[in-house]
């Protein structure tokens, strides 16, 4: 647990007590120095991140998955919805490297197209949920006045039955959205919005719990006593300290969003039925698991791999941004 020499010699950090902020410096006081420090700090974060083996492996695999789903379809140009009924249920071959499904659609092309949707939905919905959750959590933990109303709102959302809520949202917004943004994009917004709007509550409760404890700590009192305004207080001192539960919630959130998307589609609330996504590929293949095991293995592995990568990247980021761990 020894701090690096660099942090020890940083007078401002020492003054800030045990503030665990990555940017534990107030720019207005000594602007030029701060700028230099900030830059070197981000470099430092990156250096630390690179030394985290798990995170680097995760990042490399994650980038390859992204390339697989985004660049892949440019190279492997079979239409994922093209039905080649004579080639149905075929195994691994040159024409279909990963085989075909029960209608003869190319599994490789479907995995690539499905990945685009699943990753986009997973990341976006997670970001929405985490953003709303952190915002509400911080607000309600930090401002006592907002606590009661915001937490009652959270309870309301927790209590609402998800399925009727989603059915209602789809009924109300499917047509207007697909008219404004076109069918595919409109449904994307709808799904991402629906998942995001119904999964922020856990993050909010966790963040609030942490903030409640945090705001009584000495370094917050110290910062307050020098007159730090609320918004800077939250951004500089509170948020960085609740980062790790947020990271965990975000990692888990991606997995949940990918699976929820497939649940939505088998309720008829998601993308058009011939539109592949990883979750749906997995769900559709469960019945045929014994006959064609690879049809569940590929989407399953890709989902897990994505979640694992995000988890390791999150771990690496968190470590890299924590000055106490950095350089260990």
């Amino acid at each position: 647990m020894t701090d690096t020499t660099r942090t020890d010699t940083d007078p401002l950090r020492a003054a800030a007590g045990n503030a665990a902020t990555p940017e534990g410096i107030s720019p207005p006081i000594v602007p030029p120095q701060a700028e230099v420090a900030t830059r070197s700090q981000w470099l430092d974060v990156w250096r630390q991140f690179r030394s985290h083996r798990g995170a680097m492996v995760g990042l490399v695999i994650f980038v390859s998955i992204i390339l697989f789903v985004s660049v892949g379809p440019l190279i492997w140009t079979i239409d994922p919805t093209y039905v080649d009924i004579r080639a149905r249920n075929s195994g691994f071959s040159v024409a279909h490297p990963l085989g075909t499904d029960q209608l003869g659609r190319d599994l490789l092309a479907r995995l690539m197209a499905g990945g685009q949707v699943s990753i986009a939905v997973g990341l976006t919905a997670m970001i929405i949920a985490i953003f709303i959750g952190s915002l509400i959590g911080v607000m309600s933990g930090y401002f006592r006045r907002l606590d009661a109303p915001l937490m009652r709102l959270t309870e309301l959302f927790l209590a609402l039955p998800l399925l009727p809520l989603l059915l209602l949202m789809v009924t109300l917004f499917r047509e207007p959205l697909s008219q404004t943004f076109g069918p595919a994009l409109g449904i994307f917004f709808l799904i991402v919005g629906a998942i995001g709007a119904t999964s922020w509550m856990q993050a909010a409760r966790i963040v609030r719990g942490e903030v409640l404890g945090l705001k009584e700590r000495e370094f917050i009192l110290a910062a307050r006593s020098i007159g730090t305004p609320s918004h800077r207080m939250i951004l500089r001192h509170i948020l960085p300290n609740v980062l790790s539960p947020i990271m965990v919630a975000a990692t888990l959130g991606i997995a949940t969003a990918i699976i929820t998307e497939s649940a939505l589609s088998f309720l008829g609330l998601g993308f058009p039925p011939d539109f592949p996504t990883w979750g749906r590929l997995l769900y559709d293949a469960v019945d045929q698991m014994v006959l064609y095991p690879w049809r569940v293995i590929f989407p399953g592995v890709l989902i897990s791999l994505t979640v694992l990568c995000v988890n390791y990247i999150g771990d690496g980021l968190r470590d890299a941004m924590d000055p106490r761990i950095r350089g260990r």
Partner: protein
Amino acid sequence: MLSFTIRRLLLAIPTLLFISLVIFLLLEASPGDPLADVPLTVPPEVRERMREALGLGDPWPIRYILWLKQFFWVEPLHWTDQVFGTSFSEGMQRIISFQSRSPVFDVIAQRVPQTLTVVGMSYVVGVLIAIPIGILSAYRQYSWFDQIGTFVSMIGFSMPTFFTGVVLIIIFAVNLQWFPSVYDTTLEVRDWDSFLQQARQMVMPVTVLALYNAAQISRFMRSSMLDNLGQDYVRTARAKGLSERVVVLKHVLRNSLIPVVTVIALGLPAVFGGAIITEQVFKVNGLGQLLISAIHGNDIPMVLTLTFIFAILIVVFTLVADILYGVLDPRIRYD
């Protein structure tokens, strides 16, 4: 703390009433029809009659008030009658399900045991596994144990239960024939044999759910422990010469429990909500199956009552969590 608790409990009443109104309006507004299950061979005029017999002819405010009356007045009276043999509730209509035309609370009472045994047990198992794994993973960060723990829990969390459940059934029920694939809800535990039978049929659903719950809780436990292990007070405690055991299990653990308490407090009401997919895969027919079939059948009285009980539990457990925060970290004050 006591005055805080009382204040919160009083505040809970209008909150819950408001929640019940929102849920009711949501169910009213969402598309669906209690008669969707009725075959198309039944002509529209007959459907209209059936709808009227369900009481759907009345405007919504009347139906909402009727439900409130039934929930808060008729049902408690009925239970009083059951316990004391009185007859206050005679002639009063209890909350009746659209699907089965039977009192909603009787059906819920039938379902609670299997949900508590299966889902409740899996939650307990999940927590019991998760906390030690989380502590150990954090304490030996990036050790083999931690890496394997991370790997297993991330896979456990990212694999949906509709998949893991079927995999278990195919391996252990179809191929090895160790466990039954169908849960028998009529089984009564009377002797050792029936206990064994009950244990056998619980193994698979409990495993699936416990894996999922443990994955989530252990991740939060680990990250929170990691945050705290780096704090100055840990160094101080070690410097004082306290044993590692005391440092980790007393100081660090206690301070790390806040997010874990939050997650568990959010998870406990969910136990009552049942596990929709797992219950379906193993045919446990608990509250999750009840809720989902009621939603599909647009059985408004059933869905409303179940979600309202769920809401009460959420309000209670958030309160419990808030009180526990104060116990774990005495600096947290609400007044």
